[in-house]
């Protein structure tokens, strides 16, 4: 299953990547599992698992880590927002 993964702010800097096209292995069907799989790829990826109060959006809507994944989804990981 192919998805697009985005990272923002401090997380983008820690990981050194803003966007990535990812082919997700079968069996990974939720956002939380995707995060764990990405985080297991060696340095610097564990930062994704240890990020405090990690927020996630699927197709530009905030969701929980139990949200389902579908082919073609845009999944964004980011720290709590600080606008305004």
């Amino acid at each position, binding site marked *: 299953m192919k998805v697009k993964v*985005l990272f*923002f*702010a*401090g997380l983008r*800097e820690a990981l050194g990547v803003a966007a990535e096209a990812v082919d997700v292995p079968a069996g990974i069907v939720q956002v939380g599992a995707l995060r764990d799989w990405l985080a297991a790829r060696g340095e610097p990826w564990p930062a994704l698992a240890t990020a405090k*109060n990690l927020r996630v*959006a699927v197709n*530009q*809507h*905030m969701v929980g880590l139990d949200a389902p994944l579908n082919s073609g989804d845009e999944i*964004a990981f*980011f*720290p*709590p*927002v*600080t*606008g*305004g």
Partner: protein
Amino acid sequence: MQDGFSVSVQEADFDAGAEIARLVAGREDIGATASFIGYVRADKVHAAAAEKVVAMTLEHYPGMTEQALTDIVEAAQGRWPLVAVRVIHRVGRLEPGAQIVFVAVAAAHRGEAFAACEFIMDYLKTRAPFWKKEETPAGGHWVEARESDDQATARWAGR
């Protein structure tokens, strides 16, 4: 969005007076506008270090940001009878004293104008995907989210 309701994410500065004038132009059903402007502050509140903030850079999530702001304005419309709303949030590098965010609400009466303006700002602070990076003489760092902002949003849930 419905006529009279709009959101913008932009690098350019804004003229609050002109924005409010546009909101009420040609209308006779508006009895009140309430507005809010947020500014870049030079002092340091998120860390013990005493360095002054020389600038901050606002990052956002293009596409989602506009959608999130639209959702927030529509949630406000669902709570109060509003005539018009304008939200502007700047991105990019801003120096102390610069305007960052503008919210203006027009309604028949002041009660809903005040309440909706505060509601929109409270939700914007915790739901709209913007991130601030402060620049000081010692280097840059990302601003941490404040729990008080989550509490400010949460208090609307019971109302």
